[in-house]
């Protein structure tokens, strides 16, 4: 196996709606370090936004943090979004919304997960008692 030099960027934000935008802006800068097209950069930004949103919805009003570790090398951008929200926390989505979504044949969480699956090359979700981690991988072109 050959070794690749890689750069790491770490960001920790409060697990609250108003900070998800900070993560998206940072990821915009990070993804721009890769030979991605404008659309691919946007894809990564949206996928990370969805991972953070999922954490924020599960946290509800409990105090929690989101840690976003990005690893950049010539092969891929790997972004790991981890929270410290207990894995059994249920997303705080108002009932009526969930019902409306279900009636339309979709669920919002499912939408977030679906978007991540489509927008990046690999999604790996790991839940433990102490938190959930979503690892998003987008490979460099070629």
């Amino acid at each position, binding site marked *: 196996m050959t070794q690749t030099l890689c750069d790491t960027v770490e960001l920790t934000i409060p697990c609250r709606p108003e900070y998800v935008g900070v993560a998206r802006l940072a990821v915009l800068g990070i993804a721009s370090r890769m030979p991605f097209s404008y659309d691919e950069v*946007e894809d990564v930004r949206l996928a990370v936004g969805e991972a953070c949103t999922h954490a*924020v919805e599960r946290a509800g009003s409990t105090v929690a943090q989101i840690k976003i570790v990005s690893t950049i090398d010539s092969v891929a951008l790997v972004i790991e979004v981890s929270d410290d929200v207990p894995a059994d926390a249920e997303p705080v989505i108002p009932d009526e919304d969930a019902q409306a979504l279900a009636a339309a044949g979709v669920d*919002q969480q499912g939408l977030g997960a679906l978007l991540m699956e489509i927008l990046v090359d690999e999604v790996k979700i790991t839940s433990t008692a102490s938190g959930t981690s979503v690892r998003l991988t987008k490979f460099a072109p070629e």
Partner: protein
Amino acid sequence: MNLTINSRTPNETTRILEIEGEIDVYTSPQLKQEIVKLAEGGVKHLIINLSKVEYLDSTGLGVLIGGLKRLREAEGNLVLVGPALRILRIFEITGLDKIFDIYATEEDAAAKEGVTL
């Protein structure tokens, strides 16, 4: 990281909402509140102009779907106008372009929905 909602009233049961900014987990409650308020106030046709929306996530999609369901139950409709290609793509990859009526311009939307602007 801001959302601005500009509301116009072409007739009593129709509203045009022109949205500017990012619809995400932080701002979508504001949009939801506006849609619920209008629906409860008797609005049946909601034309949502997305041409100035730069970002839309699953919570935003959720709010739009919730509004759509509400208005269709009231025998009205919630239609979308002018999303940028990037935003349109989000509807396409989630299959929601088949659930929503999406028009290029407000005039198109009004004509097809049978409301006068």
